[in-house]
């Protein structure tokens, strides 16, 4: 089982030590998402504080599944909020928030590690890899991706779909349901 899931069960019971362990285990992930999306260490720090405070004050928002996937989505949505409030991008360029529920089965995603994902990403053609990384961490819409990479919109869509399918295949059963 995802260790985050076990810790969240104790955080629900207001266990401060479990919360501290959760923070120790996952703050680098949340900070990293904030840094990549906001491009500013101070903002990434604030985002990390906000995400973990939210976890402490409303732990029941986590309804099971993969904790890594859930906390990543929470961090990403918070980063989008930050981009909206500081008007770093026009509203039309900021994508919709990610749904937080319906995450993968916990023990499946728990077995995928960073190196394996990097390897899977490295196997993609550069034009697919670039769009997927910029899409995930850029906090921009597909239209903006097309503009920034000077690629027709239809090509952007096709490359993202093909790239995600290849990633899923490369990660194999570790991300299949």
């Amino acid at each position, binding site marked *: 089982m995802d260790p985050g899931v076990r810790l969240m069960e104790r955080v629900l019971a207001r266990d401060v030590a479990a919360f*501290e362990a959760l923070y120790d285990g996952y703050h680098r992930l949340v900070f990293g998402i904030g840094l990549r999306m906001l491009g500013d260490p101070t903002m990434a720090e604030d985002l990390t504080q906000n995400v973990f*405070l939210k976890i402490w004050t409303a732990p029941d928002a986590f309804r099971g599944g993969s904790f890594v996937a859930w906390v990543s989505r929470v961090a990403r949505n918070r980063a989008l909020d930050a981009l909206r409030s500081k008007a770093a991008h026009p509203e039309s360029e900021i994508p*919709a928030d990610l*749904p937080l529920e*319906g995450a993968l089965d916990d023990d499946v995603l728990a077995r*995928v590690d960073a190196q394996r994902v990097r390897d899977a990403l490295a196997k993609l053609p550069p034009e697919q890899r670039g769009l997927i990384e910029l*899409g995930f961490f850029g906090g921009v819409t597909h239209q903006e991706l097309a503009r920034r990479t000077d690629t027709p919109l239809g090509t952007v869509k096709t490359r993202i779909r093909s790239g995600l399918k290849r990633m899923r295949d490369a990660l194999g059963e570790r991300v299949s349901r």
Partner: protein
Amino acid sequence: MTFDGDRDRMMESVALYALGVLPREEAALVAAFIANDDAARAEYLDLRAAADALAHIAEEPVDSGRSARMKERLMARVRSDAAAGSVARRRIAPAYPAWLWGTGLAAAAAIVFSVVTVIQDVNLRGDLATTQRRTAALQVQLAQNDRIARQDRRTLTDLLAPDAKRYDVAAGTVVVRRDRIYFAFSKLPVLPKGRVYQAWVAPKGSKQVTPSVTFTPNPDGVAVVALPVDATRVGAVAVSVEPDGGSKAPTTTPTFVRPLT
């Protein structure tokens, strides 16, 4: 964007939705498509799995000084909150006698008074009022944006939730999750000017319908509608075509009537 017209194009949008790069309005349409299509839902879950795995590569080493500072700030807040929470839960009597509260209030009032006096002395009152007005306006705007974002987030989550109940109806699906009801239409006929679709709800155990929201699909017949009712009290829903502005009772044969059993 019709769901039948260009299926491949819609499936590509499913991938964009899984990656999280669709703007709000388009995301809602794709969520409606996924809610109506088993194959699209299966592909969404697969691609979302691949997209979720990407988070693993975000992990960044945080320099030790920053890491310690962040943790200290956070844990101070959490420990204080935990202590306050446990005091509240134990319902311990106030630690100070009542008269001391009065003294404290007087001291606080004195501090507030002296702060106000200082502000007046430096003649900043006008600037302060302007700033406060701007801040208040900004707060209202931010609160409104936040409310819309939360509502969108909830709608998208509900439409795709595995535990949602789905009822097929003409041109779409009725989605019920917990106390919330949505219509996700993919191909509603576009109406002539002056006509709108109107939702109706019948309370459990009743055949009488009461009027709900009116709505208009986009030019391709797509609409996602959240009904402002408590789903746990609703026995059936219906939709009919009505004059612009809506009616108090249906004036045409309903497009569908769907018991929520």
